[in-house]
């Protein structure tokens, strides 16, 4: 295992910024996205969705639709089985309502027809009789005893008695004596927070093409963050063996976690099976908002005690998250992450998951963490304001470090939090002057990061080039980073390497592109696969030279005799060894399979300056700087891209993005006009400062960087607003009407 670990080295290619291999295709419109797949004889599918937030399906009559010219197949829940496994059943019920519709937009039937127009016309002919039921979309209302029950019988045993059946799950983390801790504080602040659900807001709507043949084989081309997981789920729901379902991931126009879960793929497969023809299913933006994605909404209480010199003596968070109409455990991650940045003697986080009549929550960049950390960082800031303490100094004073027992259990290894805070403190941004109605806010952020199942093949071509085959859709430039690591290890130029994302039949299981895992885990497997290939190439050279394998080593892209005793032979380059591989034993390939550990947690610190228009409550972001530890930035541009993208999504969450439900339980803003993600002109350049504190668990020291960036903006902006105009915004988003109201209440 020693070789796995980080070894200090001088990098030749890692850390440079070559063009990404998928760049030309993307900027010239040639890249194949989910909706670009077509097949001969293909049908088009459309889904009929519930207009009700909560209703019993009394009957579905599809006969008129079936009779319409061009209609080839219709499916409802009756075309699927009832999985025994809770999780699988939830996934299926989310794709197609069974018995009850649980939210506005819930699928009740789907049609495949020869044209989109025929499919749309058929939807209008399907008669669904509903018996509407009382609904609940607010997390606090759903927890109260007597609230409409979204799904009966789903609460786990660990849920305290006296709560609504909608409360499905409870968790608790922490250590130390809270009462004693709070008693030591000079001031204890407790605040209540509420945050709206947001959507990942990916630009490419979910899309797939499914083709099931009469002998039971199937193909699925789909826009996904994880073709293997999609295969697992679809095969289980369709009753297929994994080998018979080949899933190919398209290029992906954004996912941010939202494409780690299936929404309509089994429906397309079922339609194809029934019609005996390929079926294409592309969601509209309205459907994307109503039936895919969103994050949890939350209601939270945070209580923190601090001494007058800034030491936190005790901290407690009570988090209630709602992930829509199905049980989930995202609140665990929020609870674990809440106080991760702090070294605390007494800390407790409690979490509850609550069902509401909303679509099933999906992962979104650091799922669960932005909310709880927003609440925590807001209260820390309020305490700093009260005591007149420098907020960065207070964070440094309490910062977690190597050896800290984290608030969620594990003891930290080498982490970059203090270095990141110090970088922020030393940066000119921190002391730049501010004008009237302007304020500066800061927040720490944290994410766990993940490693997971990973499998890479590396093929040495006879012309001296190399193909890397990996299994993770590239959502942030990972093919470039993986090529760079292969180039570094092999000692050949980046341009000689082409990395592709394989379908599920071409490689062993790879976990989903999530948890900021790809550059870390696939990078690690690529380096190991390269080392495997290098061993084989050394052995070929040894054979040619007639010396021992052990007497050959790899230096700068070539096999050389190791030491003077090995014999005197000129170096044999990779290209030279590859050219004669047919005579020395055949093709040369390296492989590596691993369930990777050691991802290494990630911390970030954000600084932002904002200005509030006191007459309208509008908040403008003037300056923004992200400080984050990347372990090693393999391709710095794409590390910066992740940091900037995360910050921008967090800014949207803080200021304007929200799911808005009417009293009828219907989603009122299922489009980009009224679901307001930031546009380019809303934002200043997001500046980035990359720190490189090597991750001990990766050969090059790489740490995932994809998720942490979305965590700090929520509190950073709230803290800046508070310092600009003296109001503490405890509800997200801090949209202008809310901020103006708070300003008027303050007087």
């Amino acid at each position, binding site marked *: 295992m020693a070789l796995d670990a980080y070894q200090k080295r001088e990098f030749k290619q890692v850390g440079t910024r070559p063009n990404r291999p998928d760049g030309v295709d993307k900027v010239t419109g040639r890249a194949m996205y989910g909706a670009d797949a077509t097949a001969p004889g293909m049908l088009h599918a459309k889904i009929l969705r519930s207009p009700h937030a909560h209703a019993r399906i009394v009957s579905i009559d599809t006969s008129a639709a079936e009779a319409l010219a061009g209609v080839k197949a219709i499916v409802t829940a009756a075309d699927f089985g009832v999985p025994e496994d809770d999780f699988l059943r939830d996934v299926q019920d989310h794709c197609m309502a069974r018995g009850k519709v649980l939210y506005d937009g819930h699928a009740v039937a789907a049609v495949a027809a020869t044209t989109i127009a025929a499919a*749309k016309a058929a939807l209008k002919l399907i008669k669904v009789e509903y018996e509407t039921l009382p609904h609940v979309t607010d997390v606090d209302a759903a927890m109260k005893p007597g609230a409409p029950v979204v799904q009966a019988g789903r609460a786990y045993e660990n849920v305290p008695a006296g709560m609504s059946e909608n409360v499905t799950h409870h968790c608790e983390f922490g250590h130390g004596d809270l009462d004693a801790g709070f008693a030591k504080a000079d001031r204890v602040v407790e605040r209540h927070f509420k945050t709206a659900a947001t959507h990942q807001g990916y630009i490419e709507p979910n899309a797939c093409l499914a083709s099931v043949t009469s002998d039971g084989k199937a193909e699925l081309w789909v826009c996904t963050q994880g073709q293997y997981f999609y295969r697992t789920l679809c095969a289980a729901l369709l009753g297929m063996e994994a080998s018979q379902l080949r899933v190919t991931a398209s290029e992906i126009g954004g996912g941010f976690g939202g494409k780690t879960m299936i929404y309509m793929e089994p429906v397309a497969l079922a339609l194809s099976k029934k019609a005996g023809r390929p079926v294409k299913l592309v969601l509209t933006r*309205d459907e994307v908002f109503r039936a895919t994605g969103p994050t949890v909404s939350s209601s939270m209480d945070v209580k923190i005690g601090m001494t007058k010199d800034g030491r936190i003596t005790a901290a407690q968070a009570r988090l209630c998250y709602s992930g829509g109409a199905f049980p989930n455990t995202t609140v665990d991650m929020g609870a674990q992450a809440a106080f991760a940045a702090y070294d605390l003697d007494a800390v407790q986080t409690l979490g509850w998951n609550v069902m509401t009549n909303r679509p099933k929550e999906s992962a979104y960049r650091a799922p669960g963490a932005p909310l709880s950390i927003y609440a925590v960082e807001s209260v820390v800031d309020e305490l700093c304001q009260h005591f007149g303490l420098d907020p960065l100094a207070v964070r440094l004073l309490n910062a977690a470090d190597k050896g800290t027992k984290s608030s969620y259990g594990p003891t930290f290894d080498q982490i970059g939090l203090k270095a990141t805070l110090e970088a922020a403190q030393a940066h000119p941004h921190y002391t730049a002057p501010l004008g009237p109605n302007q304020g500066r806010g800061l927040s720490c952020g944290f994410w766990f990061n993940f490693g997971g199942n990973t499998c890479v093949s590396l093929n040495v071509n006879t012309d001296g080039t190399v193909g890397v085959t990996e299994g993770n859709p590239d959502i942030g430039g990972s093919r470039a980073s993986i090529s760079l690591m292969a180039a570094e290890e092999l000692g050949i130029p980046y341009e000689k390497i082409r990395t592709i994302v394989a379908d599920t039949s071409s490689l062993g299981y790879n976990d989903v592109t999530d948890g900021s895992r790809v550059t870390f885990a696939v990078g690690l497997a690529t380096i190991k696969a390269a080392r495997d290939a290098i061993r084989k190439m050394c052995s070929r050279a040894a054979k040619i030279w007639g010396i021992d394998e052990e007497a050959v080593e790899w230096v700068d892209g070539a096999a050389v005799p190791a030491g003077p005793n090995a014999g005197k032979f000129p170096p044999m380059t990779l290209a030279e060894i590859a050219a004669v591989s047919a005579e020395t034993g055949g093709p040369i390939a390296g492989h590596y399979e691993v369930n990777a550990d050691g991802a290494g947690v990630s911390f970030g610190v954000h600084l932002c300056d904002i200005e509030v228009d006191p*007459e*309208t*409550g*509008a908040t403008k972001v003037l300056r923004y700087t992200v400080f984050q530890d990347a372990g090693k930035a393999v391709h710095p541009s794409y590390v910066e891209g992740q940091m900037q993208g995360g910050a921008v999504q967090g800014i949207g969450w803080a*200021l*304007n993005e929200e799911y*808005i439900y009417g009293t009828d339980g219907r989603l*009122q*803003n299922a489009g980009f*006009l*009224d679901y*307001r993600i*930031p*546009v380019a*002109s*809303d934002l200043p350049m997001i500046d980035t400062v990359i720190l490189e504190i090597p991750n001990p668990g990766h050969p090059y020291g790489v740490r995932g960087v994809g998720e942490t960036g979305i965590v700090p903006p929520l509190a950073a902006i709230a803290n800046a607003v508070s310092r600009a105009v003296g109001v503490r915004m405890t509800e997200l988003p801090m*949209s*202008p*009407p809310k901020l*103006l*109201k708070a300003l008027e209440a303050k007087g």
Partner: protein
Amino acid sequence: MQYVAAKTADEAVALLVGQSGMARVLAGGTDLLVQLKSGMVEPDLVVDIKRIPGMKDITAEAGGFRIGAAVSGAELGEHAGVCAMWPGVVEGFNLIGSTQVQGRATMAGNLCNASPAGDAVPSLVAADATARVHGPNGARDVAILGIPAGPGRTTLAKGEIITSIFLPARPARASDAYLRFIPRTEMDIAVASAGVSLVLAADGTVESARVALGAVAPTVLLAEEAAKAITGTRLEEDALARMAAACAAICKPIDDKRGTVEFRTKTAGVLAKRAARIAYDRAGAKK
């Protein structure tokens, strides 16, 4: 659905009159095509008016300008004469959408789409512009304020189309301005808006004013009391405060996903004040 590109205004009128089902005029299509795609409207007939001669012309008339109904935002924005005389009208129109949308969108389309939040409309009302309406009974000129009837509805009768919009002549020391509030900086819909047109006297006081408010009532509002509040003043703070209060007094907005009654009412006054200042500075800067 039938699509016809009419060659004359009379042909367009005849086609519209002759259609017994649903008929729609097509100008830039930036509202209509979106509505077609989402299934909001399913017309039997679409009559394109862009190819009618004169529809894309901007012509000087009686000291002002006549603007064809198919003139796009980008085209109007490049017309030096209109920009100099009616900068507030141009800035309202040019706020619509993006560069792509500006290449297609028309003022008449914005007016006839009849959204309470249409960005081209308040400045046109403040400018006291008129629309020339062609119909089965010939042509008539209608004040802009007389066109919208409610959200999504106009006072135009079956078969009537707008062929041009007329911006009247301006004395020296006159100008206008338009402001809207949106939570973002572009690609958004006005939560409240204000267009203000001012004529200054030689001593720098406001000789006459017209103030119009958008997105705070089912249709655009002409705020006559607000205009009176600043007439005869140099926009001193108290005059502006009275103006804002007069604006607030006539707002009849709704609470919806885009803003609360409270917020819209307050913001309309704030925008009117700010737009008045801009118009005042512009007018004063003119020699």
